């Protein structure tokens, strides 16, 4: 049995190593990385809402974010997984929206908080520049202009 368990452990580690080889280019989140990713996503996709969720680093712990946000009115569940894409490297949550749909900031804040995380701001492209709409406690937003380095 000892030999079996030792062999199984070696197989596990080897298997894990080959799986993790797929993410060699994984980069820890920085503001620059996040803003560049946000600009790219908004340039390439339409009908999305892009939210920075602080602390979103573990996809399995953050399943609750998808579960909660996908229940909102106007989310297009046919896109991404249940209409929500989560990126633990950039901490960006992309919400796929149905045509002309809008989502309430207050509802986003509550649903993300209920999942154990903090929604900080959402992004919009404005004349080629990235604007951050910073969430306040009263669910209003403060617009901050960002010019990403890359």
């Amino acid at each position, binding site marked *: *049995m*000892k030999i079996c*368990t*030792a062999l*199984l*452990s070696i197989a*596990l*580690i080897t*298997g*894990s*190593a080959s*799986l*993790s080889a*797929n*993410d060699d280019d*994984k980069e*820890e*989140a*920085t*503001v620059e990385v996040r803003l560049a990713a946000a600009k790219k996503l908004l340039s390439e996709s339409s009908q999305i809402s892009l939210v920075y969720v*602080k*602390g*979103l*680093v*573990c*996809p*399995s*712990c*953050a*399943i*609750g*974010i*998808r*579960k*909660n946000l996908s229940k909102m009115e106007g989310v297009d569940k046919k896109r991404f*997984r*249940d209409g929500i894409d989560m990126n*633990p*490297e950039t*901490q960006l949550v992309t919400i796929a929206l149905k045509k002309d749909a809008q989502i309430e900031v207050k509802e986003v804040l509550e649903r993300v908080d*209920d*999942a*154990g*995380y*903090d929604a900080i701001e959402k992004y919009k492209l404005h004349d080629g520049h990235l604007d951050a709409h910073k969430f306040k406690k009263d669910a209003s937003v403060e617009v901050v202009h960002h010019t990403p380095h890359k």
Partner: protein
Amino acid sequence: MNMMPRWSGGWGYEFHYEYRTEDDLLMGSDALFEDFQEEVEVLHMDWVYTWKKEIRITAKLPYVINAEREMPDGSGGKLIQKDDGFGDLRLALPLKKYFNLDGKSGSWTFKPMVRIPLSDKDEYDFYYKEFGTGLGAGYEAETANFYFGIGTGWWIFHGDRPAELHSSVDFGYNFETKKANGAVFWETDLHYEDDESKTLSTGPAFYFNHNDTIHTRVEWKFDLFDHQGILDHGNGDMFKVGIGWVF
């Protein structure tokens, strides 16, 4: 799999199969009787409900499929003793304080625990079959790439069992595939009993989150150091494989 469910109203259950074998009967750190084995198979059934993100309740019920140990019969031979059936039900109320930083998330945990025996004592019991109360505390933190967790739990029993302390230190590396994610861990456990027994075991674990509902885990641990305060089995290995569902 103790990191889920973090969301309010989340719940889940898990089944783990554990195989444990110990090679010698120890007294202190010496093998008083070499090649006197203990072999145990247990099915663990765990359940969790997250009422609010800060408050969970967990229930853990082990079922001993088969436990067998060799003891000296007093005339130079071996006496074989067996055990099976339900072990002790353990209930806990983990209270969590989460923190979210840029690129890092984690939690502090404090948990009161109780242990309820479900059957009477016998000449050989793999589980203690005694009422017990305990307190646990833990800290875990994670980035997109790395995991670190430390935890400790202190148990006292309302019978003959000595008090126990369990502590653990876990390091992990997170990885992602196209549609799923997982982690490779190196885990180290210290088990101390108030009769001078202490065991330090360590080994790898592999966790895979197949989708938003199903996750699996495999782990193997071996003893680095084993010291028994009374005549008891030691120098062992533990292998565990589990599957869980979360909703």
